């Protein structure tokens, strides 16, 4: 039996709109993954520490407030500092196309914009994480 994929679903920044994060967390769990949900208002430091402690392969960041350009690069930088660059970072939320491209260039594995299907997210994680 292969070890289930472990995912940290995190809600950074001041925004409290957690509907998407919770729906994704449940969907990933239903797809057989082990999901840790951080709860609200996590700083990049808290998120990376949780990822380290929970030994996850994927971090999913849910950001709807427009603060992604401040938050996501900081998470990537901390992962590099802690030599955790193999952890895949995916972003979901209201991220305009140009910003999504820029974030991918900086190392984000995927950006899921509004209307993305749960199956597409599950499939992406399965394909991105080596078995």
């Amino acid at each position: 039996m292969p070890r289930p994929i472990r995912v940290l679903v995190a809600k950074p920044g001041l925004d409290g709109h957690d509907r998407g994060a919770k729906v994704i967390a449940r969907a990933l769990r239903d797809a057989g993954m082990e999901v840790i949900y951080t709860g609200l208002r996590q700083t990049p430091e808290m998120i990376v520490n949780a990822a380290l402690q929970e030994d996850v392969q994927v971090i999913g960041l849910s950001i709807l407030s427009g603060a992604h350009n401040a938050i996501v690069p900081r998470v990537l930088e901390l992962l590099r500092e802690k030599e955790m660059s193999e952890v895949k970072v995916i972003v979901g939320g209201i991220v305009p196309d140009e910003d999504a491209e820029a974030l991918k260039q900086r190392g984000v594995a995927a950006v899921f914009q509004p209307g993305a299907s749960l199956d597409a997210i599950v499939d992406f994680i399965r394909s991105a994480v080596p078995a």
Partner: protein
Amino acid sequence: MGIETAHDERHRTTSGVAIEPVYGPDELKHFDRQRDLGLPGGFPYTRGIHPDMYRRQLWTMRQFSGFATPDETNRRYHYLLEQGQTGLSVAFDLPTLMGYDADHSLSEGEVGKCGVSISSLEDMEILFRGIPLEDVTVSMTINSPAAVLWAMYLAVAEEQGVGWERLSGTIQNDILKEYIAQKEFIFPPRPSMRLVTDTIEFGVRHAPRFNPVSISGYHIREAGSTAVQELAFTLRDGIEYVDWALERGLAIDEFAPRLSFFFNAHNDFFEEVAKYRAARKIWAYVMRDRYGASAERSRKLRFHAQTAGCSLTWQQPYNNVVRTALQALAAVVGGAQSLHTNSLDEAYALPSEHAVTIALRTQQVLAYESGVTQTPDPLGGSYFLEKLTLETEQAAQRYIERIDGMGGMIAAIEAGFPQREIAAASYRYQREVESGERVIVGVNRFQSGGQPIELLQIDEASARQQSAKLAALRQRRDNGRVSRSLDALRRSAEGRENTMPSILDAVRAYATLGEICDALRGVFGVYQETSHL
């Protein structure tokens, strides 16, 4: 019925109420016109709170608006008023909603993004520059730090020479739905409820035309609840505020007329109309029978409606104009007192001036062209709508009784009850979209290529400007007076007196929002929620 389609899963409201193939008098066998309906303007107000409704006065067209700096938002307000908007509605950014100044480290990347950045009385003065507060009613979507922002508003009115007794407007100030749904909370529930009660009491004494709370289902619905849950949790929140105000020693008819409500206008047209009608009816009976309110105005539920932000799609954004128009129609035939229509670009960003103009024009078309304003409750008496109103009411009553049984809304929140109900409903909804059982045009059916639209961009210049202004303010103001006023506020928060007078003193001394909220955090502590997946 015996026909298979009666139990067809496809024919249900979003709350799961089964819809029969056809409705007739049999569905209303137990319906009592006196008890269930009344006349427009008559108890239990199912048909609306005014006998002549929109013939006398149209709803207030109030577009929720705020972005970047107070200067830029002030310009948008002048534009909207010139375009025929009849009231203002302030959207604050996340640092303001969470009680942090623009230059706080946690505000990085968030200043001016989701609303306007307000850190001090100086910002509030700029926000309302050239806008006569005596003539324009202003609604402010602010919750945890509502007392502070309201004090800033009252101070601006003082500076304009407008007596508080002449001010009309609303602060949202509904902290319970923050714990339930929107999650912009600072302090734990009980001290938060004390602050809300302070504002209700202060309003009764000093600003009797101001609505101190807008009890909100909007955010509950946006978090994924059903229409029934939205209705039930909102009305039960209202009951909680009433209980606290009575406990404070206020008389029901002193404050109940100033409680206002705020509901979502979602896709399921008849269910939404039924929801507004059921809301008025339940509240009228709650006021009369549970609280013995005798003033007619206490028994009338007044509400603002906003079309459903969560129904807007990123794909084919122009379709959002149509969705919004239908949702707005539901709010209007449901008897709303004021309305916000979302802009077509809001799945992407805060609205551009072009998009917000179309949204306002949508309301104007409804008001002046459609003819739906000519008679109150035009759908009243429809077999289907009356049955649905009854079923919606009964389902909401069952939730209200369950929460009563738990010991009230705070106990229910602490047990995670409404949060879990909403999370389950939102997951179910998303699964239905995934399976295609629930059709979203342009998303899971009828897809086509992209339609690029022009978006409002907010850069980091706002954050820099706001921080520079704060630094200058901290130099210029009388810092001795600031720290004395904050000490006095701490003492008042530690005691049992109303905190509004000391919040006002601190605001007038140009203590910042962050400084005032820090003083209160020191006394009240902060709230950490347990997450309910």
